[in-house]
């Protein structure tokens, strides 16, 4: 019976990135995917005739350009179309827009506060400085601070040197930045609530934290990063929906000789004498491999796919303690015409960007209080986009697809599982909010898909529906991600690796975990990594 060189569990973007790199290193790689399609949370699905839904992730924000280049994704059809703007609607009938042009951006802020308009440059400088500090860490394996191995010491030294290279002032700023809430951080720059809310959303998207929670200033970086290192065009819609990203990855993988089996749910990993030997599918079929890489989150991988007896207690305890909290949902809507927002001029570029309705820090934080109490937010935070304003391939002529990312939605409602009635209530909170700013919105709806954490977990397999495969808090970053001692993509089971967003550097359609994991695997196999571009310089 054939033994693959590597079996990848899960055809999400990180699984595919990992598979591509391994295949291109000369390995014989099989990707097994439980759904009948690949893509994980980066898919485009025709859920109603003529409409393509980016039904989970909806924006290409952080995808590493080095990976796009190595895997030749443009050749395999990936096109990223940039946002042209964005806005927060205000309750007084106005809006605060984000424009790409620096001076338009300043003038827009000046409509609300001249001071804030002129504070933006200082803010951008400070955030950029932090990004420059963090960004090179994304494409490196985190060092183990308890290890005395030369590589770990070298990496620690690298970190230390980077830090020591800062002035005393910058060190303090960096430490503060890592521990502040986005709300407090913004208070130091801006006076206008809606301007703060406009920036704060980047500090909370995907997390189970509110803008007033310490540590959210750092999350801001996680969303800001793509814009820093000259990754022009890295932020935008993928033509044809987010599935285009994974479609291109799959095409790249197949072109280099890789194999994909869809509709193949893994029941468990075959382990013999502490070593992974392959996987057993739900139907009982055994597939053998010299190594197994799991794109599933760390909880799913080790609490469901691997038998407890194969794992040390301390590892199991830490995996159980890994915080993976669903905090968001999606409402995907097919529309028979472009919704109108009376507050927004018809020729505004904002229609071709991301729109929001949460115009104060308090509303954002209160939405989080609902989540803490085990409820979905009655006044939710929405990140709403209409990709069909730039990509007509996703809907029939004249019709539109709208994606609403919704925060917050708890993994359980008042401690119990979501019901269909809950789901409808959740959707109603979203539709009601949009309708307040867009009269007649309801009448335009042709079809709607509502995804609470329940649906996200069921379809994509993300535990608790957490889009980042684990919270981005300090206790789960760098050498703590996913768990201390196993932050280098390996696991206690020989030949079993992790490559999902549960690992460093975390979530978003970034591809870095998949790539970094491939580098570690190839290192273990003593294979060349010359086909992997080094991380871009930050100079």
């Amino acid at each position, binding site marked *: 019976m054939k033994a693959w060189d590597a079996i990848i569990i899960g055809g999400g973007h990180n699984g595919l990135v990992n598979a591509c790199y391994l295949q291109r290193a000369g390995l014989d790689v099989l990707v097994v995917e439980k759904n009948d399609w690949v893509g994980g949370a980066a898919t485009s699905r025709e859920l109603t005739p003529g409409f393509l839904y980016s039904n989970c992730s909806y924006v290409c924000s952080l995808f590493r350009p080095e990976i796009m280049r190595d895997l030749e994704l443009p050749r395999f059809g990936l096109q990223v179309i940039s946002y042209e*703007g964005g806005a927060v609607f205000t*309750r*007084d*009938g*106005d*809006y605060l*827009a984000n*424009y790409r*042009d*620096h*001076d*338009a951006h*300043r*003038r*827009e802020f000046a*409509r*609300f506060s*001249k*001071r804030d*308009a*002129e*504070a933006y*440059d*200082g803010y951008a*400088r400070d955030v*950029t*400085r932090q990004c*420059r500090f963090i960004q090179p860490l994304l494409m490196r394996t985190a060092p183990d601070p308890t290890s005395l191995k030369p590589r770990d010491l070298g990496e620690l030294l690298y970190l230390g040197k980077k830090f020591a290279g*800062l*002035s005393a*002032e*910058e060190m303090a700023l960096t430490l503060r930045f890592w521990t502040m809430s986005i709300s407090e951080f913004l208070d130091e*720059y801006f006076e206008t609530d809606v301007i703060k809310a406009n920036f704060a959303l980047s500090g909370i998207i995907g997390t189970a934290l509110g803008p007033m929670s310490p540590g959210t200033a750092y999350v801001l970086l996680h969303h800001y990063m793509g814009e820093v290192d000259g990754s022009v065009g890295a932020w935008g819609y993928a033509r044809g929906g987010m599935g285009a990203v994974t479609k291109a990855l799959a095409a790249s993988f197949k072109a280099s000789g890789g194999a994909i089996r869809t509709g193949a749910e893994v029941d468990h990993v075959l382990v013999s004498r502490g070593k992974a030997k392959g996987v057993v599918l739900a139907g009982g079929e055994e597939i053998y491999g010299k190594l197994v890489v799991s794109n599933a989150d760390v909880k799913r991988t080790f609490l469901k796919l691997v038998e407890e007896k194969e794992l040390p207690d301390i590892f199991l305890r830490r995996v159980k303690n890994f915080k993976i909290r669903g905090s968001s949902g999606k409402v995907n809507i097919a529309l028979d015409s472009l919704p109108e927002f009376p507050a927004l*001029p018809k*020729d*505004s*570029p904002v229609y071709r960007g991301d729109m929001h*309705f949460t115009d104060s820090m308090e*509303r954002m934080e209160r939405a989080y209080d609902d989540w803490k109490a085990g*409820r*979905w937010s*009655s*006044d939710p935070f929405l990140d709403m986009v209409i990709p069909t304003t730039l990509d007509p391939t996703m809907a029939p002529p004249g019709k539109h697809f709208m994606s609403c990312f919704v925060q917050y939605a708890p993994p359980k*409602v*008042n401690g119990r599982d979501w019901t269909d*009635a*809950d789901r409808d*209530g959740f959707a109603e*909170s979203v539709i*009601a*909010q949009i309708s*307040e*700013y867009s009269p007649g919105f309801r009448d335009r709806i042709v079809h709607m898909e509502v995804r609470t954490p329940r649906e996200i977990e069921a379809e994509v397999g993300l535990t608790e529906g957490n889009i980042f495969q684990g919270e981005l808090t300090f206790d789960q970053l760098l050498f703590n991600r996913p768990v201390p001692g196993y932050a280098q993509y390996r696991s206690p089971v020989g030949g079993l690796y992790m490559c999902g967003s549960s690992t460093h550097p975390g979530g978003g359609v970034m591809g870095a975990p998949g790539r970094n994991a491939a580098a570690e695997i190839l290192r273990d196999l003593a294979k060349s990594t010359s086909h992997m571009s080094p991380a871009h310089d930050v100079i």
Partner: protein
Amino acid sequence: MAQATRKKPVANTANAAVSARIVAQGHFRTLRLGTPFQPRLDALAKTQDWYNWAGYRAPHSLWDEELEYFAIRSQAALFDISPMTKYRIEGPDAEALLNRVTLRDVTKLKPGRVHYTAWCDDEGFVLDDGTLFRLSPTRFRLCSQERHLPWLLDSAIGFDVIVQEETEAVAGLALQGPTSFAVLRDAGFAGVEKLKVFDLADFPHDGGTVSISRTGFTGDLGYELFVPADKSLSLWDRLMTAGELRGIRAIGYTALNRARLEAGLIVANADFTTAEHAIRADRLRRPDEIGLGFMIDPEKGHFNGRRAILEARAKRKLRHVLVGLEIEGNIPAEHAIVYYKKSQEVGLVSAAMWSPMAKRNIAIASLERPYGDTLVEDLWVEIYAMRELQYQKLMKRAKVVARPFIKLDRRTANPPADF
């Protein structure tokens, strides 16, 4: 169901501030604003060669950048400086505030006078340079390249003073060149002859006033005029009419930039990086490192950055120096690397040109001390002159020379020359 129903967040209350905000929404359709003088500039813009000056459409040139330059040096040149950032600082503590914020001693700046100054952050790194106009004992105008409202407002904490940004409300013109005085006089600004260099006075214009100072950015005889935006076109016309026979010409930035370089003047974020914009810590500069050390007055009392600046001097922490260079030959050394003994990199040229006035090949460069400071011999610049798709690589000797590169007696002569 466990959920409370949504509270209605939308409250459409009509209020003046909101209406004003909404009226201003349409700015996104015009990314580069016209200045108040735009109708006149448009009429003259034969080259249609625009650039973005702080969000305004400003001319690089209008009809001929060579002749525009010579208008500055041989006739009268009119340059629109409206996009310059302007702040009004007014109140009983305005002098004290500015004395704390800026380097030079503001108590020595009399009403009706202007001085060139700079301001620093706590570490003594330069935030910007600019001109400070003392309009009255308690009223000032600060003009600069970059924007500083948050810094000025935070500086004003504890001072009885108001700080207002007035860039859009106030239009500005620079009238520079040997015939500039004659143009103003002929335009009917009686008494303008009394203005000595760095003097400032108000003159009646079109039912309002225009404030005229004998200042400029060219090293030549010249004036700057500030006028409320709604009186700007009549001012333009008044000057153009009066100057017709004196060769008055509207000009663009390319010409002005040449003149300023000959005058040895520096430009923020061209010749040095301002602290607010410096992302890389080693790009920050103290006044002594960009030739502004003369502004520092250790005796005037406290000012922002004083401790750090004096400490840097005492502990010899100054790492850079900005110098004027004269380079052999006539090929401009723009952005050339400066070498010591033709081999060791010691700095960079930030601006360079062949000076038609001085007939010398001049440059402004930032060097790493001690080069350019105590070690001024054996300096070279490596010029990459692109000629028909090939670099002609030249290694030319550079001599540290004093700025300005040209000195024109007419700039300061009193009474001003009547050409």
